[in-house]
């Protein structure tokens, strides 16, 4: 088991180098650099100053040299600073000589996105397991059909449209929830509990909208898994033994049916750090999606590479965790690995 783990971890390094190499070159295939943004198309600015900027950022050097410089920095875990005029560090805060702390871009955006996505995943999985089980147990009844209809409507509704409707309904005509943003204007003056409820209020809509589209896939997974298990011999045996139906469904069947979900959870770990540009823009949430999108438009290479690197590390770790989780949950696989 340990040797398997070490082998897997060691394999991650060449994979990472490969991923970074490909993303670096693909990124540079896109025409333009940070000096060709719309704001710099201003007759008051001069080509010389843009050229100067290119030299400062080494953008005048061949891509392979730029990649070498990047690898050199990243091997010291230095993700560099953004090319944007705010020059903020990509990953983590820095302190200047006067003790002023400049927060890192990812450092600020990641916790917000993680929080929303973790809440989203929790909501998706808990509701999906309930809905999927219900549909399977009541197969082909009106309950089953309306659940399927509901999850597919949720899947099909465009998120931005639903978001705007809900914002109007809960924020403008009823004023139950805040419309956008992460905190109220008087956030600083609230008590700790007040701050907590304020945050929750701001998160209800974004989490709801982002979860709705995920229900369809997972709940159908659970439903099909359940159906398959419920038709198996050991369930028949359990029933014939006169076992409590509640126990059969929730203890014997469900446990087996949600096994494949572990893989899905593992695979969704990299998705946890990727925010949705559209929903972040609509809800005015400064998360990872908007950060990545803006840096692509700006050709802000350090930020793009920073996010991609962190994303690929998390993907690889996610795969590993999924495999380990599987091994932990399923003795058959565990045996296979240790052999």
């Amino acid at each position, binding site marked *: 088991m340990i040797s398997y783990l070490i082998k897997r971890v060691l394999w991650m390094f060449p994979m990472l180098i490969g991923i970074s190499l490909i993303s670096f070159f693909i990124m540079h295939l896109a025409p*333009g650099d940070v000096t*060709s943004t719309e704001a*710099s198309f201003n007759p008051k600015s001069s080509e010389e100053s843009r050229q100067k900027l290119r030299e400062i950022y080494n953008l005048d050097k061949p891509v392979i040299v730029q990649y070498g410089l990047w690898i050199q920095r990243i091997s010291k875990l230095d993700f560099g600073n953004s090319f944007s*005029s705010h*020059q903020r560090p990509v990953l983590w805060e820095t302190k200047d000589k006067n003790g002023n702390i*400049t927060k890192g871009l990812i450092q600020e955006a990641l916790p917000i996105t993680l929080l929303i996505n973790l809440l989203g995943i929790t909501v998706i999985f808990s509701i999906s397991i309930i809905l999927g089980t219900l549909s399977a147990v009541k197969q082909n009844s009106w309950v089953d059909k309306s659940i399927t209809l509901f999850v597919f409507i949720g899947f099909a509704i465009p998120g931005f449209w639903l978001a705007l409707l809900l914002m109007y309904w809960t924020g403008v005509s009823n004023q139950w929830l805040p419309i956008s943003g992460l905190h109220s*204007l008087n956030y600083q003056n609230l008590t700790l509990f007040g701050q907590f409820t304020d945050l929750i209020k701001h998160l209800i809509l974004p989490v709801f909208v982002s979860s709705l589209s995920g229900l369809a896939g997972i709940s159908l997974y659970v439903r099909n898994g359940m159906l398959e298990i419920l038709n198996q011999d050991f369930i028949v045996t359990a029933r014939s033994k006169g076992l409590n139906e509640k126990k059969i469904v929730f203890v014997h069947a469900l446990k087996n049916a949600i096994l494949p979900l572990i893989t899905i959870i593992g695979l969704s770990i990299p998705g946890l750090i990727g925010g949705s540009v559209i929903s972040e823009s609509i809800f*005015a949430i400064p998360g990872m999606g908007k950060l990545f999108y803006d840096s692509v438009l700006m050709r802000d290479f350090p930020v793009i590479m920073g996010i991609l690197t962190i994303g690929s590390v998390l993907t690889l770790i996610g795969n590993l965790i999924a495999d380990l989780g599987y091994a932990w949950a399923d003795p058959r696989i565990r045996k296979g690995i240790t052999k």
Partner: protein
Amino acid sequence: MYYKNIKPYLLIFLFCSFIFACGKDNSVNTNYQNYYDKESGGRLINAMTGEPSNLIAMIAGDSASSAIANNIFNSLLKYDESLNYAPEIAESWSISSNQKTITFKIRKGLFWADGEKLTSNDVMFTWKLVTDPKTRTPYASDYQLVKKASAPDPFTFVVTYEESYAPALDTWTALHILPEHLLKNEDINSTYFSRKPVGSNYYKLDGWKSGQQVSLTSNPLSINGKANINNLISRIIPDTSSQFLELTADNIDLMNINPIQFQRVFPSRKDLRNKIGLYKELGNGYTYLGFNLKKEPFNDKRVRKALNFAIDKNEIIKGVLLGLGEPLSSPYKPGTRWNNTKLKPYPYDSIKALALLNEAGYKKNKDGFLEKNGKILQFEILTNQNKQREMTAVIIQRRLKEIGVDVSIRVIEWASFINQFIKTGDFDVVVLGWSLSLDPDQYNIWHSSQQEPGQFNFLGYKNKRVDSLLEKGRVELDISKREKIYHKFSDILLDDSPIVYLYAGYGLSAINKRVRGIMKPSPPAGIYHNSYDWFIPKILRRNEISDI
């Protein structure tokens, strides 16, 4: 059995939550029509789509940054309500008889927001900073023309140019003066000052929550006196539909709106009209169709003029801007002295267009397309991802099809657009925009020497008379002589038709009616010109629990 007893309450609830979207009218019974006396205090909340990147304007390039920085910093000079030069940090200025030296007299008794004195040393320091090769500013070139600058005493600042430079005063309205005592030991490119600035204008920075909001509070040491409104909060809301919802829910007071909201939504919503005022003013830019003059057939003036006649500008203004724009006949803002009122835009006249094209050798072929030497007249309009420009291109395509010109449209992301097409000169026709700057100098855009890749005469315009007018206009400081030069320049440019002026759109703002003191109709300098004088009557204040 347990699960059989589960009634689908949850399900019904979820379904109902979608369906029962009942609208409740909760308009506040505030009378916005009453008259109120001016009083200071209160908080104004506006929305912006982008976050400022850097509050040192010479380093930042984005409009969000300059919008905030303009509230914090001052320049030597400013434009007044009718767009004439007015004193700001300088109380007066004089130009030497050879027109090469400008002497600014700095006002006495000025202070930075931290209590330090503001003197000509700060001005000198700022000039050194902007011209320092280590400073990453795109705007250095104007200030590098200054051969010698000096601050002989704390209240005098003198600059001498190599040659007289007419846009000089304009450049001194744009340069925010920075405090030497806080920046002399800092690297301007990465200093924390850009997120924690100290200025001299109406407001000072109060707080900045990344990606969420920037708050300003009034600066008691402001060199222009105290602003009426105490706090300005700019919330960062990237999506304009969300901004609009926040506006209708009274959570924000001010936003920029689009023509559909202005012309369609507000007229049909009485509840909104009661509490929100609409303002329009000519914006600072125009949209044009530009020909690649180095390419056939656009090197033929008759073809350019014909296409100009064949495009109906009023139709575009009606269709794209819902009437909220104006046609242009020169690259200057209508209503300013530089705009030559004798010039009229090319009217829509397809017969004249066809006649000109016939003259240029084009005949209709059997498919109805115009043809010359076996080649039909066809080209591609290139534009960037901008809804209004895309719609404009479609309308043009249809009009030109009517006279037998085959036009295709291609929409490209900005950075690719600039690097693959503009810099390489590999395009036929573009739909793009230029700003309507307050100084009339257009040397960088129209002088024939400005055609290198990365420079701004990418259309390849070359006209000896225009070259010499632009050179003259740059060194002529006498305003009425200068006016004549640029009127002549606009005349030649319109006749040559290297671009088709399509429209200058209005800037549209929606402002909650509790905000008072806004000038209507807006002065030439725009409604925000006197925003320091706006006020919010106490009785109409809201969202201010935390202030108490």
